[in-house]
């Protein structure tokens, strides 16, 4: 029977190894989940008949919900949606081969959850704000002085140069906001990741790994940022299973 893998978790916190999945947490088709154990780790798996898991939105949400429910009971590594292995033996071999890396990752995320921060902006308003703030001597509107007659090529370069300077200003601004966030959350966690300018409106996409009990402190910290950056829109979410903090290449 093929196995649909939801998560990998540690058995070390349960020396008697009688760890069990709460019965209210079931798999996508409503089947019972079970553990495939190997040493100090175990994969949470369900049976599946299909060659491919239905990749519709509903199934993906169900899958995420199951992992989330498990995360409230165990320290775990979430597994990518639709991860199917040929048999229980194949799962055991995978756990055995990757045990060292899995245990290192489990240790990193032990008792911690992921929190996500997305920062959006109106890029046109922010650009105008940054240009106005710039030293007039380095204004993005001023072409470099020249004695040559006007030319379409020079105008083209000037237009591109203006866009380039604006982009550099935006990046510098994003870096400054990231530096502020990093310093403010450093008291809560040292584990964070940032993605800069994933789109024109999404300036920063950040994820933090921290204990669930520190959630309220994180909210207060991020709320403080809002007052310093009224042009930006903040959305803080969580707690999530540690999706962005699993560094594992399964062999």
């Amino acid at each position, binding site marked *: 029977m093929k196995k649909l893998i939801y998560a990998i978790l540690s058995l070390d916190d349960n020396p008697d190894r009688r760890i069990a999945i709460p019965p209210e947490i079931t798999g996508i088709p409503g089947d019972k989940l079970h553990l495939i154990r190997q040493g100090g780790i175990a994969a949470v798996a369900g049976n599946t008949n299909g060659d491919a898991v239905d990749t519709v939105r509903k199934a993906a949400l169900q899958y995420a919900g199951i992992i*989330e429910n498990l995360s409230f009971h165990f320290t775990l590594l979430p597994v990518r949606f639709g991860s199917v292995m040929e048999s229980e033996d194949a799962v055991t071999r995978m756990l055995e081969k990757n045990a060292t890396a899995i245990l290192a990752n489990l240790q990193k995320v032990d008792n911690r959850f992921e*929190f996500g921060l997305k920062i959006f902006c109106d890029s046109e308003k922010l650009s105008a704000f940054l240009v106005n703030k710039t030293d007039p001597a380095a204004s993005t509107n001023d072409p470099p002085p020249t004695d040559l007659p006007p030319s379409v090529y020079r105008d083209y370069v000037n237009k591109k140069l203006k866009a380039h300077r604006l982009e550099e200003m935006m990046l510098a601004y994003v870096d400054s906001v990231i530096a502020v966030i990093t310093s403010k959350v450093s008291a809560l966690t040292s584990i964070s990741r940032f993605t800069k300018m994933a789109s024109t409106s999404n300036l920063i996409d950040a994820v933090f790994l921290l204990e669930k009990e520190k959630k309220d402190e994180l909210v207060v910290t991020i709320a403080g940022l809002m007052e310093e950056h009224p042009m930006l829109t903040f959305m803080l979410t969580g707690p999530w299973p540690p999706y962005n903090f699993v560094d594992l290449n399964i062999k």
Partner: protein
Amino acid sequence: MTENKILFNTGSFDGIAEDIGKLTSTDESKLKLTPGNADSGLAKLVLTLVELIRKLVEKQAMRRVDGGSLTDEEIERLGETLMKLEMKMEELKKHFNLTDRDLNINLGPLGDLM
């Protein structure tokens, strides 16, 4: 999900939903190579790479212009070259019926290619 996941939000939900929608991949931002569209699929792949390299060259050129290391004549020639490259790319996109969005592949969590 078992609980409300939004802990803090300073924007409107509609606005944020729209912004998040821009982060997800669309049909245009995917490479779909099938036996039936090998020509156009390959054109999209090749032009995506060419456009990426063209933009990198342009960026590096602007750094040099901004750094003041080019003479007026060099800037003039550079402008002519970059402009012609951009025009040629527009021609190629039109020929293969592609848009800027088609050439901006979505790299998932990393965002758009360009």
